[in-house]
């Protein structure tokens, strides 16, 4: 009996081959097998023959949407920076996408980084991806040489051991609290759809930190980020981080110092998280790629919670709605405004600004 | 041992060189007499200009070793450090670290040869240093041809000196601007065209070419046509650099380090390198 992911892999290869052979797309973004157990390598396939390299397994932890804008660009006919856009439709790119990655493609479309018409989403329902770190932690001190994947278990092998572990127990934290594992965009369906999940509390990990006292929270933050070596893997693996010049790289003015000073490191992480507010889909890639094992996902997850509570929005779930932080509604909570706190009685309300929707005003504008 | 310590200097004079105000020449005087004595450079070398609180930037040395007692640097206002430098005043303290790099072979390959100097835009700075060095030992060299072009008359650097050089019999001077301009009665045309018109003989000659990459690209064909080879042509490369001493790796072009192996290379050396400059 082939496993679910073996079936998915075969379907990905067949569909990719078909899309490339028919000329529907010029490239397919997927995964190739890695050279170590529990690793995979993102791969852009451009010919039907190379489709045999494509695989799908429970270790596909990198967000492929990160590769989409560059791959779209790479299939366009070459032109100079001032040359006009060529006439007619540009070549398309197919991409394997799970729930969160497809939501990132929605965000990329909303932010005009990606032209939706040029993307063929090969939608794969995610069954949760496994954290290599969690598996390694179980076998601490022993080298894992091979991991065989079943639908619900992993057979972990080393030089002198072979053990079967439950797959879900080592699924990444973000996948365990994921509510939308099935892609929100599907042009080509791969495998079976996966139903919405209802974890009892999707923000349980964040709330554990929120419940701490201010001092304890600060201690958690200081310790968690103290190991950062400023390699920027978290930023570079993130499909939201596409600024041509990141604020940490700006020299004029220089916003952030470059050494490992805790203030600079903390500032980088906090600002990066804020840049992701309302846009992050909790794909967990930042946390996965960190060579130091920092849980920077806690910052973005906290902001995801705030955005959901404040605006009722989850990133990438409403393709037609504007992004929550690039727009406003008249009934947005605005506790930060001074006039909310203490209206001065002697002054006319008009001079203090309004406190509710103004009749006839635009409800939701840009 | 390498030292990252710049020599303390004071800004002794500032000359605004160009009409757009973006190029200024800074005359720097050593604060310490022993540093002034220790300093010894070759034309074509560069130095790190150091501004406390801002950082360092590599700039070609515009003064000739024969101008004793001070250093000249002509700096384009572009990045963080150069912008800060442009805001400084006469009397302010800064630092100079160097001299760095190899420089032009004024004492070796150029000696006894006819010298053709071709400069475009503000790349003329180290070539000014070179010309002054050659003039100080004029009998050591053959014919000197100096071709220099800028966009407009107001963008020419060292205008007073250009006038002086024009008076001399022992320099074949060709100053050109890109387009006709009111009050300009000199040459008009791009540097490659003028170089083709002047057609300096390659016999027993060496050419030094500094300027924007596009200028170098179009200057070579007319020279090659009359027999110039890549070994006779010296270019100066630029790359982002930090240490200037061949350690930090920033300026590498393949295995070559611009700061240490260069910045001066023959054209045949440059052709061996990947185009990463």
């Amino acid at each position: 009996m082939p496993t679910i992911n073996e079936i998915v892999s075969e379907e990905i290869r067949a569909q990719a081959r078909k899309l490339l052979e028919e000329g529907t797309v010029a490239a397919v973004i997927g995964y190739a097998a890695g050279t170590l157990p529990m690793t995979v390598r993102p791969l852009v396939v451009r010919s039907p023959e190379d489709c045999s390299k494509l695989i799908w397994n429970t270790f596909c932890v990198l967000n492929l949407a990160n590769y989409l804008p560059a791959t779209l660009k790479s299939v366009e006919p070459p032109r100079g920076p001032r040359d006009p856009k060529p006439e007619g439709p540009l070549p398309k790119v197919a991409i394997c996408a799970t729930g969160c990655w497809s939501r990132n493609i929605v965000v990329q479309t909303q932010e005009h980084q990606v032209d939706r018409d040029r993307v063929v989403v090969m939608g794969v329902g995610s069954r949760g991806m496994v954290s290599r770190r969690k598996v390694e932690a179980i076998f601490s001190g022993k080298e894992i040489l091979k991991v065989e994947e079943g639908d619900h278990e992993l057979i972990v092998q080393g030089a002198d051991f072979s053990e079967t572990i439950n797959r879900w127990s080592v699924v990444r934290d973000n996948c365990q609290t994921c509510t939308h594992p099935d892609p929100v965009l599907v042009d080509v369906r791969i495998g079976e759809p996966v139903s919405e999940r209802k974890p009892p509390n999707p923000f349980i990990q964040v709330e554990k930190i929120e419940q701490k006292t201010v001092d304890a929270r600060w201690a958690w933050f200081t310790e968690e980020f103290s190991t950062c070596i400023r390699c920027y893997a978290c930023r570079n693996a993130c499909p939201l981080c596409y600024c041509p010049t990141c604020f940490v790289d700006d020299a004029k003015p220089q916003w952030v110092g470059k050494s490992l000073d805790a203030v600079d490191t903390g500032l980088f992480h906090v600002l990066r998280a804020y840049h992701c507010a309302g846009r992050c889909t909790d794909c967990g890639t930042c946390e996965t790629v960190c060579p130091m094992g920092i849980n920077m996902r806690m910052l973005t997850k906290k902001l995801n919670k705030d955005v959901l509570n404040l605006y009722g929005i989850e990133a990438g779930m409403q393709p037609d709605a504007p992004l929550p932080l690039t727009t406003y509604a008249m009934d947005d909570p605005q506790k930060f405004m001074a006039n909310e706190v203490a209206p001065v009685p002697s002054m006319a309300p008009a001079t203090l600004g309004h406190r509710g929707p103004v009749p006839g005003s635009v409800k939701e504008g840009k | 041992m390498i030292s990252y310590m710049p020599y303390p200097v004071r800004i002794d004079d500032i000359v605004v060189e160009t009409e757009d105000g973006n190029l200024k020449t800074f005359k720097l005087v050593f604060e310490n007499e022993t540093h002034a004595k220790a300093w010894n450079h070759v034309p074509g070398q560069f130095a790190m200009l150091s501004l406390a609180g801002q950082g360092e930037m590599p700039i070609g040395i515009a003064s000739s070793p024969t101008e004793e007692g001070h250093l000249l640097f002509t700096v384009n206002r572009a990045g963080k450090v150069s912008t800060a430098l442009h805001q400084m005043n006469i009397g302010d303290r800064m630092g100079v670290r160097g001299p760095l790099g190899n420089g032009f072979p004024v004492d070796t390959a150029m000696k006894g040869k006819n010298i053709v100097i071709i400069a475009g835009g503000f790349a003329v700075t180290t070539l000014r240093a070179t010309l002054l060095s050659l003039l100080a030992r004029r009998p050591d060299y053959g014919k000197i041809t100096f071709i220099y072009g800028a966009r407009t008359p107001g963008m020419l650097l060292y205008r007073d000196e250009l006038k002086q050089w024009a008076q001399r019999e022992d320099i074949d001077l060709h100053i050109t601007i890109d387009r006709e301009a009111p009050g300009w009665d000199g040459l008009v045309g791009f540097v490659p065209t003028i170089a083709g018109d002047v057609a300096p003989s390659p016999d027993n000659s060496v050419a030094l070419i500094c300027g924007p990459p596009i200028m170098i690209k179009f200057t070579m064909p007319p020279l090659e046509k009359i027999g110039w080879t890549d070994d006779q042509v010296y270019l100066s490369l630029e790359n982002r650099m930090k240490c200037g001493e061949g350690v930090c790796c920033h300026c590498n072009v393949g295995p070559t380090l611009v700061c240490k192996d260069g910045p001066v290379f023959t054209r045949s050396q440059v052709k061996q390198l990947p185009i990463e400059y």
Partner: protein
Amino acid sequence: MKVLKVTPAELDAMMQQWSKAHRVYAPALVKQPAASPNCAPGWRRVDGSGALTLSTGPTPASVKTFFFPQPETLLTYTLENNHPDKGLMREPEKSKEMQVVVGVRPCDARSVLLNNLPYQEDPFFQANRRRTALVGFTCDQSLSTCFCTQMGGSPLGSEGLDLAFSRTQDGFIVEVGSAKGEALVTGLDLAPADESEITALAARRQKEVKASSTELDTLKGRELGKLYDAPLWQPLGESCINCGACTFICPTCYCFDIQDEVVRGQGRRIRYWDSCMFPLYSLHTSGHNPRGQKVQRTRNRFLHKLKYFPDRFGPFSCVGCGRCVQDCPVNIDIREVMNDLLAVE
């Protein structure tokens, strides 16, 4: 060369002894702050109590942090108005306090020797070398990602170590590799190693085949243009996310950036780790970037290690520790790159 015999109990006593006079570091088994006066990233300061625990393979962090700290203060100055020395640079006092790094693997010990080639004339690196003693443990076991033998090293190598511990049946034999090593064992009552154990170690070393190091050496003679234009870079550059993880965890990546930092009028010029994977690394002020594309930067890192560095200094700039193989987020495997390069016609 002196070879001594040390029991595990004696090792504990030695560490205790050293920690009285020096800063002693051992590999950290739990998270360590990257910047803190008492730690170095991935290393913890020890007081000698408790036994030394080493995992198989390379230590979690490389020893480069002890020689090339992140950051190193090159100069200090004041920017206080009206201060007579405003803007005048001063060289900081270089620390002379000895640091003893215990638990170093042969691959990392070699990395210091390789980095010493470009840093031969660097006063800070050399000062750190003078004050750092490396106490290493040869590897009885390797990880599947280890390839030191391919890079000209050996799991049993003692090159670059001041003291090299190799396991015997009941303890260790210790090779004293330098005057610094000698100083660490002076005054300790240690017996010389048995002749039989010395012979046994030599025999084990003999058996260590220098795998394919000669084959890899053919890369050095290859024409740069061919390697540079090889088709392997395009897919590699496409997968690479251009983060600095590989360069920062690499013991032999040594490039740096220099910056000024000013806090409340007091300034310092620091150097800190940089990565040729970052676009900013090669960006000109004009906006021109000679390595503006991802593929160019990925290629630069590998060719620097496997071609540019050997061209300048002889050996490859890689010790085969396998850290990048393990930690690359997109599984770019330098072993594969080397094989692909060898296959370039």
